């Protein structure tokens, strides 16, 4: 009881409340602008809070983190630009919905799903987190290898009808993922003596190009001089009937669990959570073919999954002192500044502060409903009123600025445009883009971890499957490959 009052009185002071609200609004905007990302924003703003109360700094981190994860969905739906890497899967069904004139409905679903995913994750952080954190230590390189393989096997779900083109796309992604310094031998691969290629191709640079440029070119081709008039813009009330809300419940539960599971593992991020959630929703659906063509459940799954990753990714940081991503590392840094040593004793030493941060992660998830639902969605949906001749240059400038600020390198702009032109051609010849991205994310993860595992086992391959957790994930991967084939054969037999 004592702790509860201590936590709540800390959180509901003026400073922390203002920080949460301000940061949530800011976070939505940061997420919505491609290239600007929460890591950058938090890194820039944290030093300003060093002299303030710790809960002001932590409230700000929570607001920006949760807000931006939802904000990323806004350009993903309206323009097919993933505002953050985690918003990729949101473009799959969100953009087709927007093109059908259901932009505000898609935004509303994204908003609710983000809030729910974030809330579920924060509850996990407060309750089961400390228990599960210890268990994640059992995951070594061999297990991470199989997680990556599991993700890759799920590409099968994404490729749709043309398996050959899907596999080609995935292979291209894997190839792109090999560019750069080999992390295990220090050998440069496919760098052609160019210093800027040493660290490989930056994921967000490729993503922004690949996904955002083709629709911009399409807009330019249409060369429309008028946008939607205020009357045409279907803004409100974006009706999401109760029956539909109820139909999302299984998706939300599934995606929340996936997001929490991925988040708690250090090193796997919101983009993987969103992809796996999306795939799970598609596999579970009665009508999987409707995914990718504007199925609202796809938006719900992706947005719920990537927000459910957030608070859970703080679990290893707060309980073990192991930051699973850069934002968690920044939170640990902020705690250190205030004289708190992250690690197993943190909660016992300062329950008010840690508990307060957990409550802030919960409150900022709920704030998405207010900030996103009421304000941001309406503001950003106005984008559709801009005529193409204004929209095209505006988007191009935003893309260029966003990509430049990531690494401060002009060459990234050329990579982005090259990726964009390639994406345009791929779309014309019906090569799916998602497998490229998945290959790029999962290829390096699989390769580095299998090689680490083999270094540890001194080259003994059987250790990859004899460890119990590895064996389970390996079997699940096998099931993921065999099941669709088997069910297709069964369906054909039944039909015959």
């Amino acid at each position, binding site marked *: 009881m004592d702790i509860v009052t201590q936590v709540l009185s800390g959180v509901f002071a003026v400073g922390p409340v203002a920080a949460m609200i301000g940061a949530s609004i800011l976070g939505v905007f940061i997420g919505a602008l491609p290239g600007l990302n929460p*890591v*950058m924003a*938090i*890194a*820039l703003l*944290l*030093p300003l809070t*060093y002299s303030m109360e710790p809960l002001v700094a932590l409230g700000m981190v929570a607001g920006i983190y949760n807000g931006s994860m939802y904000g990323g969905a806004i350009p993903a739906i309206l323009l097919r630009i993933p505002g953050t890497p985690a918003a990729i899967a949101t473009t799959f069904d969100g953009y087709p919905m927007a093109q059908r004139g259901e932009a505000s409905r898609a935004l509303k679903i994204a908003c609710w799903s983000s809030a729910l995913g974030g809330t579920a994750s924060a509850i996990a952080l407060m309750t089961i987190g400390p228990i599960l954190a210890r268990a*994640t*230590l*059992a*995951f*070594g*390189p061999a297990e991470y290898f199989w997680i990556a393989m599991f993700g890759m096997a799920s590409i099968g779900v994404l490729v749709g009808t043309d398996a050959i083109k899907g596999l080609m796309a995935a292979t291209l992604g894997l190839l792109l993922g090999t560019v750069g*310094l*080999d*992390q*295990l*031998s*220090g050998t*440069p691969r496919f760098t052609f*003596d160019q*210093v*800027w290629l*040493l*660290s490989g191709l930056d994921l967000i640079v490729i993503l922004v190009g690949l996904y955002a440029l083709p629709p911009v070119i399409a807009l330019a081709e249409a060369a429309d001089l008028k946008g939607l008039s205020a009357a045409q813009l279907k803004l409100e009330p974006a009706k999401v009937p109760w029956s539909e809300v109820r139909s999302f419940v299984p998706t939300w539960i599934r995606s929340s669990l996936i997001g929490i599971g991925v988040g708690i593992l*250090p*090193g796997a991020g919101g983009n993987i959570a969103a992809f796996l959630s999306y795939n799970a929703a598609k596999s579970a659906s009665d009508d999987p073919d409707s995914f990718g063509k504007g199925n609202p459940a796809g938006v719900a799954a992706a947005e719920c999954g990537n927000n459910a990753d957030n608070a859970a990714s703080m679990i*290893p940081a707060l309980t*073990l*002192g*192991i*930051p*699973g991503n*850069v934002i968690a*590392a*920044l939170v640990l*840094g902020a705690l*250190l*500044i205030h*004289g708190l*040593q*992250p*690690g*197993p*004793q*943190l909660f016992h030493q300062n329950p008010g502060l840690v508990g307060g941060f957990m409550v802030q992660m919960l409150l900022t998830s709920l704030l998405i409903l207010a900030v996103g639902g009421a304000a941001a969605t309406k503001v950003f949906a106005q984008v559709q009123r801009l005529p193409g001749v204004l929209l095209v240059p505006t988007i191009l400038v935003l893309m260029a600025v966003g990509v430049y600020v*990531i*690494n*401060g*390198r002009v060459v990234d702009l050329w990579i982005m445009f090259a990726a964009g032109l390639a994406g345009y051609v791929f779309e014309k010849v019906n090569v799916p883009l998602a497998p490229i991205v998945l290959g790029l994310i999962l290829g390096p993860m699989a390769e580095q971890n299998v090689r*680490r595992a083999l*270094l*540890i086992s*001194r080259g003994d391959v059987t250790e990859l499957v004899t460890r119990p957790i590895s064996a389970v994930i390996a079997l699940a991967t096998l099931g993921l490959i065999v099941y669709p084939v088997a069910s297709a054969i069964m369906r054909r037999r039944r039909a015959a």
Partner: protein
Amino acid sequence: MKTLLIGASALALSATAALAEYPERAIEVTIPAPAGGGTDTSARKLATLLEEELGTSIAILNVAGGGGSVGVTQFMMDKPTGYSLLATWNSPITTVPQVQNVAYDVDSFTPIASTSETAYTMCVSPDFPAETGEAFLAELAAKPGKYTYGNDGIGGTMQMAAERIFQARGIEAVAIPFGGAGETLQNFLGGHVDIYGGSISPVLPYTESGEAKCLIVTSAAPVEALPQAAGLEELDLGAEETLLWRMVLAPAGLDQAIADRLAAALETTVNDPSYVEFLATKGEVPNVVTGEALAERLRNEYDALAKVAANLGLGQ
């Protein structure tokens, strides 16, 4: 003779004039690492203090990639005006050139000042059959190839720091490169690698809880926070000290008066109590070395690491 004198005094005059006016506009500081990392946070904190000391604003430019080499290479194109500086840790300057083909070397800079430093440590689980630094090295030497140690990346400074010690003692241990100290710690606590190799602050809570036994630090002197760990001096390995340290550099050919002005400003700001306190939270201590002494420190470290890299077969 007269013209020469006039010329010389004009030169002297213009030099003092340049100093008197410096800094008259904003200074750009390149950080060859992404926003949010250790080098970035230290430099940003220092920049806020330096802005006050110099009375000008400081713009920070993060240029990430290639373990720092991308940012340093881009920085090399800047002119030595005193308005573009590099805030880096030692690896891009002394370690990365051993394994990558880069366009700069340790003499491509005007050294201004080092700012802070910290040692790396190596830790084992409580049931490891050694209780001292000496016994730890003896156990490793007795069982070549048996133990695995996690480090911050292949050819990284941490691996070099460990291998310098190992090579001096004829030890063979299997290096497992991870993405950083956090990942190494996770794999050490999970029992996937035998030895934690990395910075001190992440592992500190586990020495207190008894889950990690830190037996060696890579500095010559022992570290107060790790009483069980031996410094290299007491193992007769004092010459093999390798630290993680940070510094501010300018492009080669910077006016000495401006370099001195900057070094003096850094000396003041680094030793500011608020910065010392900030460093302490990261397990770092201030250590300001300026001018020629800094150039020598860089050169010595570069030469020592070149030998280690060659022995490892990493050198080019």
